[in-house]
């Protein structure tokens, strides 16, 4: 199991699951989780490439650390917006948000 392609396969799987989830989920929290899956797929890619192809500089690890921070910030802001909208709409179903169209 200790080969680059195992990890790349896993990363691609996570990323595609994320994309699938974003399109398929109707609940906002579900979509948010799917987006986090996409970010994690990219993180695994960075770590794997760093470990197998560019082991000397630790730039891939640093990148992953920053992705964690960004993902937390994104989740926090998305959650707070969802809470604010939930107070108005009483629902976290994306299809209820249809005020703006045309």
């Amino acid at each position, binding site marked *: 199991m200790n080969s680059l392609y195992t990890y*790349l396969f896993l*990363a691609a799987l996570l*990323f595609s699951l*994320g*994309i699938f989830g*974003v399109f398929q989920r109707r609940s*906002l929290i579900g*979509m*948010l989780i799917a*987006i986090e899956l*996409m*970010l994690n*797929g*990219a*993180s695994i*890619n*960075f770590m*794997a*490439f760093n470990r197998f*192809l*560019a082991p000397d*500089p630790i*730039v*891939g690890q*640093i*990148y992953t650390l*920053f*992705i964690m921070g*960004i993902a937390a*910030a*994104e989740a926090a*802001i*998305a959650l707070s*917006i*969802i809470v*604010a*909208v939930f107070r*108005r*709409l009483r629902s976290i179903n*994306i299809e209820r*948000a249809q*005020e*703006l*169209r*045309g």
Partner: protein
Amino acid sequence: MIPENFIQSNLQGISFIGPELILTLAILLILLVGVLLPYWRHRILFTILAVAGLAGSVLPLWKLPQPAPDLTYLSNLFVWDWLTFLSKPFFAVVGVLTILLTQVTGEIDNSEYSECTILVLAVTMGMMLLVASTDLLMIYLAFETMGILSYLLVGIRARDERSGEAALKYVLYGAFTSGTMLFGFSLLFGLAGSTDLLAISQKVAFASQHPQDRLLLIVAILFFLAGLLFKTASFPFHFWCPDVYEGAPTPITAFLSVGPKAAGFVLFIRLFYPLFATGHDATIYEAVSGLDWPSILALVSAITMTLGNLAAIHQNNLKRLLAYSSIAHAGYLLMGIVSLSDLGLRSVVFYLVVYLFMNVGAFAVVAMVASAGGSEEIDSYRGLGARAPYVCVAMAIFLFSLIGLPPFAGFVGKVYLFAAVIYKKIYWLAVVAALNTVISLYYYLRIVKAMFLEKPTETIQIQVPLSSRVLLLALLVPTLGLGIYWQPLARVVSGMF
């Protein structure tokens, strides 16, 4: 991969991010004042602090050495070239105009005003960092600083249903596309073994010759094109734009329509050499990386402008109409990227400067009319020319400039863009763009006709305060001036590439 001009000392390098540091201090100061001194929460105080911070952020630029194409600093994370040097004041101007517009229109409540100024400053800081970055890590961090905080800006009037919904759509689409872009970055990192753009550009040139790496390269570029096209509101990722622009407070809409869009195009230019073209020193560029990128981007450009203009025809809400018009302008701007030449890149930068004044101007008029008792619907503009002549003449000038009619700045910008495309013999794109200009004539003139030729439904004079008039004047002067005397700007821009 260390260039010759690398500034070794990080302490010396810090002086190069002086603008960002000053903005950070201004942000912390406003935060402290807003929290600790609740009786001091006057709008004017925050406005003065924010404008002072933005103005102060430009000052260190004159103390720094002459920009050079390969002068990098802070461990190769940033580059100090002409594009960086000129983009920082550009974004400072965008920030100042936005804050003044929020001050004069009063669309944001007092209770949210200090947060609004903080967020505008922080997004401006993110954009300043983004244009200077030459490292995938820094590009991602700055991109997200700009993106995540602008989601909050859109939803700052959280009690308003439309603002919340716009923020919701923006955050979901934005997070999705930035995740896609990040995956593209990770593939590029795997291909080059480095996050440095210089190393990546060498590796890309190598990989595009080798079939087994070429597929990976194409996938990586497709993935992060998603992020770029999202920020610039171009064809496959444009659908968030009308909803977000309509739902956000109008000053914030003006900010988003020039700030992040311009940052997206500057990032396009930044990634242009490493990923799309070779031939750094000559004027002849060739497309790299296996696929025919210029043709694909030309198609995207043509679809973007046609879609934006056709959809704008049926709109009755002015903010929505201007949102579609800004999609169309993203299509025009892409023409400069497509042409794969110095002339094209120059014309993109030139047009962005012109676009800043005329687009903010148009949104400013919408905000002022709405705050003076009108509405954003086109019906309320009927006969407005008699009720508020100054504002309406200004609006007409901004719209004429957006169309690209001769005495105004938009015309010069468009001529440069068309010239770039025609110079590269991509005639069909020039024809499509010309046809689009004709279509756009229809809906822009519809507003002008409503203002001046139709009978008013009310007769009350609309009172626009003096501060608003002064702000409009500040936007009118460049829109008119650059249309007549554009040579200085053209000379500055042509020194860049």
